[in-house]
């Protein structure tokens, strides 16, 4: 199977390393980062591209753009793993449209296009007889989308809720364990690379909210936007509040919740018993689903990270390979 890889940051490099390390029958014929691109129908030397990137150089040639790779490279699947733009989803949205029009499957970890334009993209994929897969957009390594679409097919989901943001979970874990203030825990998360220089997207619950929108729109048949999510972040939490919770054998976690029947999407800090399955430590994610046939299920796993997110992308790629792509 031949893929074009757009994005050579943490996720893109994780995919490249996995392809190098394992025999996955995947050849990369197109590669682009934000500054450069490479097209090689015989397969790009990923080890060399990783080395260039490691030295702070562009991964390819400056006169080849991501759009060139999408439009001109010879590939079966476009793997779109550039950073999320929550407002317009561009430039990823345009690249995905173009690939689908070229009858290419698309696998993405980018939340923007899926949250903003899923119905359109899905229709476009169907019209062109190709797959559009996005497992890596929600909860990193946890195969949640696959479990909901395939494993739990036929179930009616009455409620879906959980810990969707590892950065917030890390901060709250540390505040509870060490009595740190929010600011101290955030500084620690930054030092460890769990939080961005501008942590707004995580700590204000935007990241969790956009994941809810993706699940609502693609799995639960709802039509929602980010503005429909009732959202409260964790920035105002105090160590005292966590202590008061602990006095009652509870703690506080940032919980995203969807109740389809009520049309309700909500992200907010919630009081939760310490023994509850959703109380996970550190940067882990955890999601509970309440269904009519299967009962209640809880999924726990790493929600971010280079290799972990690559795992979700590779899962999608091999799904397509096993069902559609001939040869390798």
């Amino acid at each position, binding site marked *: 199977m031949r893929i074009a890889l757009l994005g050579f940051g943490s996720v893109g490099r994780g995919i490249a390393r996995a392809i190098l390390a394992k025999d996955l029958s995947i050849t990369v014929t197109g590669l682009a980062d934000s500054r450069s691109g490479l097209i090689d129908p015989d397969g790009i030397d990923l080890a060399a591209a990783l080395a260039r990137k490691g030295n702070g150089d562009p991964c390819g040639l400056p006169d080849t753009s991501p759009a060139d790779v999408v439009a001109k490279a010879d590939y079966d699947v476009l793997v779109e793993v550039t950073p999320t733009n929550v407002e317009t989803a561009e430039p990823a949205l345009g690249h995905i449209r173009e690939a689908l029009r070229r009858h290419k499957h698309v696998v993405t970890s980018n939340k923007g296009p899926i949250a903003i334009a899923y119905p359109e993209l899905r229709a476009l994929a169907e019209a062109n007889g190709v797959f559009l897969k996005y497992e890596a957009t929600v909860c990193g390594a946890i195969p949640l989308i696959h479990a909901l679409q395939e494993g739990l097919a036929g179930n009616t989901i*009455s*409620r879906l*809720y959980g810990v969707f943001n590892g950065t917030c979970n890390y901060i709250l874990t540390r505040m509870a364990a060490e009595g740190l203030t929010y600011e101290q825990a955030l500084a620690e998360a930054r030092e460890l690379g769990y939080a961005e220089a501008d942590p707004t997207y995580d700590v204000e619950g935007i990241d969790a909210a956009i994941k809810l929108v993706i699940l609502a729109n693609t799995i639960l048949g709802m039509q929602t936007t980010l503005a429909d999510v009732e959202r*409260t972040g964790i920035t*105002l*939490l*105090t160590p*005292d*509040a966590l*202590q*008061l*919770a602990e*006095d*009652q054998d*509870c703690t*506080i*976690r940032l*919980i995203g919740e969807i*109740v389809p029947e009520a049309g309700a999407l909500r992200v*907010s*800090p*919630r*009081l*939760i018993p310490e023994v*509850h399955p*959703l109380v996970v430590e550190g940067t882990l994610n955890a999601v509970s689903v*309440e269904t009519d046939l299967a009962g209640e299920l809880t999924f726990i796993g790493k929600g971010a990270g280079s290799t972990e997110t690559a795992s979700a992308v590779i899962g999608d790629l091999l799904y397509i390979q096993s069902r559609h792509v001939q040869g390798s």
Partner: protein
Amino acid sequence: MKLEMKDQPGQLVAALKPISAVGGNIIAVIHQRETSAAAETLDVQIVLELPEGRLDTLLELFREQGVSVVRIGEERLLYECTLIMIGHLMHTDLSDTVDQIDRTGSAEVTELSLVMPAIDSPSSARITIRSTTRAEAKKAIGILRGVAERKDLLIIEPLEDA
């Protein structure tokens, strides 16, 4: 509640069975034979806890058993939920915040723990609300949400089972 039943062997057991059938918990049974006015019937007083919404089912089962309910005592506040509030709780009149819940008549604040770290920095409070039903608890949380918005407080609600 106070029950009236036929004074025959096995009747008391027959009257108690429906309580466990609806998931109730018997706290006390008071059986005073001599106070009954009619010789053929027996008066029994029962104190019990019932899951929400089961009282009507229980009364129906009693009727089927030929047990008549003479009187149902006051429903106590059995549903409890705990929340945490963060913000300038004292400066925004904490007693008014509590009063907004108590004023409903169907829910009341039964416990409040307040931590005030320093002047001008936000305080945190854990607040326990008892109410007659879960629906009333939800209503109380709704009131508190409105208050929090007006007073610029952060409310941390419990994660309840659906």
